[in-house]
């Protein structure tokens, strides 16, 4: 019975804490962790080669504030990303989505790889044929054999 009371007493502060409103933003590590995870995937539009997490531009600060508020409102990552894409376009994403306009971007490197590999195979085959086509005359053959035997006899 004593154990039961102990458990109840220990639970009370937990319940009380749950009844309070959300703690201040900066003190909520879960929100900050989600913000950080999202911000590294998003581009700062002012300094275009920085992520939202890296940038100190005023717009980046505003967007981080906006994202933080959406996280607190319990919006999913996809909803937050959709919010930003509907305003700024796919450019805010560091990983562009696969669409008709971005097919070249996604498929291009593989096309180049296949093209390069094909060119390499063709070039190697051509060279092999050239090498095989060189025939030795009888005199050349004898000379090669002589040179090799001379080399072998040397100490």
């Amino acid at each position, binding site marked *: 019975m004593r154990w039961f009371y102990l458990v109840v007493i220990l639970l009370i502060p937990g319940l009380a804490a749950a009844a309070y409103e959300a703690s201040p933003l900066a003190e909520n590590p879960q929100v900050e962790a989600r913000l950080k995870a999202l911000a590294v995937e998003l581009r700062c539009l002012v300094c*275009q080669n920085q992520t939202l997490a890296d940038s100190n531009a005023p717009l980046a600060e*505003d967007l981080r504030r906006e994202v933080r508020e959406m996280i607190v409102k319990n919006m999913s990552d996809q909803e937050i990303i959709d919010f930003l*894409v*509907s*305003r*700024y*376009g796919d450019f805010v994403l560091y990983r562009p989505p696969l669409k008709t306009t971005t097919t070249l971007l996604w498929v291009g490197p593989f096309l180049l790889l296949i093209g390069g590999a094909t060119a390499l195979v063709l070039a190697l085959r051509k060279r092999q044929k050239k090498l095989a086509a060189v025939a030795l005359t009888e005199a050349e053959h004898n000379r090669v054999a002589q040179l090799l035997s001379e080399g072998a006899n040397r100490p």
Partner: protein
Amino acid sequence: MSRFLIPLGIFVVVLAFLGVGLTLNPRELPSPLVGKPAPNFSLPQLHEKDKVLSSTDLRGQVWLLNFWASWCGGCKEEHPVLIHLAKSGEVPIYGMDYKDRREEALAWLKEWGNPYPLVAVDESGRVGIDYGVYGVPETYVIDKAGVIRYKQIGPLREDVLQTKILPLVRELQSQ
């Protein structure tokens, strides 16, 4: 001969791509908002802060929405063009004072002239985010139904105004 022609051909293609790349402006991003309803706003006015400027009040006419700030260099650059357009009376330009201080914005308009019938104050930059603003000045052409028809990123130039914006405005006004 083809030994040299192939690398030369590749070189020319790469050069062409790089050449085209040089003429593009990486700061001009296509806005996904063109063709979509302009986000609604209801903000205090700059000159009379107790009054509200609401986007719904502007329905039924073609209007321009110009995001500017007293701290913004490009805004000074486009300012004579806006004044000129305002004097012509062809289309009203409503101002959106973006992340600015009220006194400074008022002083700026006093010094350089006010092309706007009304100016709303977006102090937090939240309406700016709704409109996808990432660098002031930015100007939107909004039609009678409240749909964004064009977005100008960066200072408005006289040639863009004459060749793109005014023809579009006239077409939208006649609809």
